[in-house]
């Protein structure tokens, strides 16, 4: 276990964490403001990735594709909010779960119908396809560093949006008392659509960027969605700060666990067994982390409102 390897894996963990934050912030915002649990959030991630891959493949430009992917995810989010989601705000969580589960089925099969079952491929833009030297001698892909930077930028922008702008003030007001801000003449329905589309756009952004690292295929949003759930449960549902800290925690624990747990078991087990046991336990690690945190803090680390 060398220092460069550790450093590289820390960056990988950070990259996973910032991507999770893009997903988790949208989920937690929608829950905090509208009280809605949205399983279909992973579908916006998938829409972002597919539209980016398709547009980039057609136009030849990653950046055009990225823009199209984010816009498409936001537009799909807004349409879904207008047609389905706004009927669910006053319903029980069970209804919300089922309706958004139905949306997943519709989006996944619809995408399969449009694009077929074989995955699309999206290349890392040329300008970002190189690698930089890390202290210690190893090299690290620039694109992954850019993803981390984008995640940090979005976190700062969200913080400023929510704490410093009029829109953010309305969002915070909507979180604490929706009747009151409606009475003060704010169009609450429009605000909800906007917040939902914003969350969808962030998910689309995450999907577009990850699409360049993995294959773009139906169902790609689901593992990420479940990780994002773990994140917001750990961080406290409704809290952006919790989402940020939860994302980094989950990203680091998951990445480092997968790399180092098998080698840890090799210290006292036969190598073949050790990699099996190590891999199996590493895949459970974040859930164990979640269980431990919940055993002490049933509402997560930074419970906002409930």
């Amino acid at each position, binding site marked *: 276990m060398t220092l460069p390897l550790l450093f590289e894996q820390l960056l990988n963990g950070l990259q996973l964490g910032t991507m999770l934050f893009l997903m988790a912030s949208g989920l937690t915002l929608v829950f905090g403001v509208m009280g809605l*649990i949205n399983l279909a959030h992973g579908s916006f991630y998938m829409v972002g990735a597919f539209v980016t891959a398709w547009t980039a493949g057609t136009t030849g430009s990653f950046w055009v594709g990225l823009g199209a992917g984010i816009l498409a995810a936001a537009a799909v989010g807004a349409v879904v909010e207008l047609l389905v989601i706004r009927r669910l705000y006053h319903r029980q*969580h069970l209804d919300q779960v089922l309706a958004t589960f139905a949306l997943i089925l519709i989006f996944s099969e619809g995408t399969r119908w449009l694009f077929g079952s074989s995955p699309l491929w999206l290349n890392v833009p040329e300008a970002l396809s190189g690698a930089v030297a890390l202290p210690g001698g190893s090299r690290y892909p620039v694109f992954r560093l850019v993803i981390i930077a984008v995640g940090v930028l979005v976190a700062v922008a969200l913080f400023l949006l929510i704490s410093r702008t009029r829109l953010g003030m309305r969002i915070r007001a909507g979180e604490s008392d929706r009747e009151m801000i409606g009475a003060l003449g704010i169009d609450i329905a429009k605000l909800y659509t906007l917040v939902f589309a914003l969350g969808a756009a962030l998910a689309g952004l995450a999907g577009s960027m990850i699409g360049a690292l993995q294959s773009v295929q139906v169902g790609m949003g689901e593992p990420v969605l479940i990780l994002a759930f773990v994140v917001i449960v750990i961080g406290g549902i409704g809290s952006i700060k919790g989402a940020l800290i939860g994302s980094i925690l989950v990203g680091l624990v998951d990445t480092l666990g997968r790399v180092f747990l098998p080698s840890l078991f090799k210290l006292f087990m036969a190598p073949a067994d050790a990699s099996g046991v190590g891999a199996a336990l590493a895949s459970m690690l974040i859930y164990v982390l979640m269980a431990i945190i919940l055993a002490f803090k049933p509402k997560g680390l930074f419970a906002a409102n409930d």
Partner: protein
Amino acid sequence: MTVPRIHRETWVNWTLLGLLLVAPVIANALGEVYYVNLATRIAIVAMAAVGLNLAIGYGGMISFGHAAFFGLGGYVAGISAFHAFDMTPVLSWPVTMTGTDNLLVIWPAAMLACAVLALAIGSISLRTSGVYFIMITLAFAQMIYYFAVSWPTYGGEDGLPIYLRNQFPGLDSNDPLSFFLICFVALVLALAITARLMQSRFGAALSMARINETRLATAGIAPYPIRLVAFVISAVITGLAGALFADLNGFVGPSMLSWHRSGEIMVIVILGGVGRLYGPLSGAILFVLMETLLGGLTEYWLLFLGLVLLFVVLFARGGVMGLLAGRARHE
């Protein structure tokens, strides 16, 4: 004393159960084994949903992780058959346990395993409520799923075939009709146990834990243990259904543990009608028939399932039982 009038819902219940029993018997007489297996599938899926209905419908615990129990039951059946076939022990330490293909041993083992897992998951998850509970049960089920995928001994991602269906003493479980009858009896028992349970003091306490927790506590009954016991019973019923499902398909794999499976069982409960005793049965009939008929027409049948589900949730609350038998009598 007047003779109690038989309610419309009771008629619907008996009709559904009668249809499920008669249809495969006729199909078997006509030599249509496919339809016998289809009925077996309905009975098993319905039983899994009966288990979940106890948690969601009666207990108000929206578990999005029941695939964990369904799959664990399946894996117990699969692993036991695997070792019986291989003539290797399941465990060599601390005690030696050999594999078996006797269903009367496998079922209690599957139920016990599910009870232990449910106790662990439930005791942590039930400390929370609302959305947290939904997400935590989902996350724990995913944990089991990833464990099964990355654990190579029992097939990992590829799953585990069951070459010879496990045996029931005195019956030929390979005969489709006999196996259907085994599953049918199991379903009827699950329904009977649920009904009996909900008529007991325990059932009353469970309902009150859902409707008004504070009031239950004021009456001197702590809600947490009541919920935990109900969650465990619910998991055990779903787990037994999973063991039957593995034997029906001759295969157990991570797909039985996936969150789609949890969603599917939940969809069946809702399509049928939440908190109605026979809701899961009507939901399972509708679901399996849709899967078979639509799935035969188009490979994108899940798209249509999604649309139907969306419609039921948004506009037709109460599901099939609401449609056939009117509003629920209580509450």
